[in-house]
């Protein structure tokens, strides 16, 4: 038998007896899909919250520690008795 003939025979074999779609399938799909969507939304919100908290914490720390101000030098002795 040629390749095409064999392929046709296998296709015919595969096509036989399609299963019946259960009536509750759509409801199940929407329920599960909705759950996935809600979980994704929650994860995104949590991520934003963490990001925002980190940003606020950094700003507060920076405004208190002022790491950009040059610290007073304490290696040179103060000039006294001049």
């Amino acid at each position: 038998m040629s390749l095409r003939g064999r392929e046709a025979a296998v296709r015919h074999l595969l096509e036989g007896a399609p299963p019946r779609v259960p009536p509750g399938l759509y409801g199940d799909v929407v329920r599960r899909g909705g759950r996935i969507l809600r979980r994704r939304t929650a994860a995104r919100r949590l991520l934003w919250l963490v990001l925002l908290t980190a940003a606020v914490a950094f700003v507060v720390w920076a405004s208190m520690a002022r790491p950009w101000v040059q610290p007073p030098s304490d290696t040179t002795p103060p000039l006294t008795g001049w």
Partner: protein
Amino acid sequence: MRGRQTSQGVRRAREFEAFVAGAAGRLLHAATLLTAEPPDDNPRARRLLTLALAHTYASWDRLRGEDPYDRTRRELALRFARGTWPGRGRSRASSGSVLAALTPQERLVLVLRLFEGVAEEQTAALLGLSAERVRAICARAMTNLLRPARGRAPAALGTEAVETEVTRS
């Protein structure tokens, strides 16, 4: 704002329902062939299809022109491939399906190539195999399927396929 979101939700639900109504029969048939369950008793196939469709539902707004059928089929195939990974899957050997004598990988390639008509290169890319390997698996699957009981050698081939499945499960 809330009103617009609701009307969008309604439209989306209608679109998705139409898609499921049109595609579920074909996809369930493919899933049932994959799991090698009899057509009237296919809990694994239903579960696979429900999960694949749920993913399509969740990403419905972000399809960006991609065919939802293709996407669901890809999800279905990958889920099946992951589930039957050696040492993980639970495939029960049922005799109700025409594909019961094939290994899960042979069934997957055969269903994608011949039942769904996916091109060889696309099948190969989807499964992470080379195109030659896909062709070889497809040819082997067709041979096993078309001559299940002709003499000694094909019968031995058939049992080997079943044994592979048992070791995998």
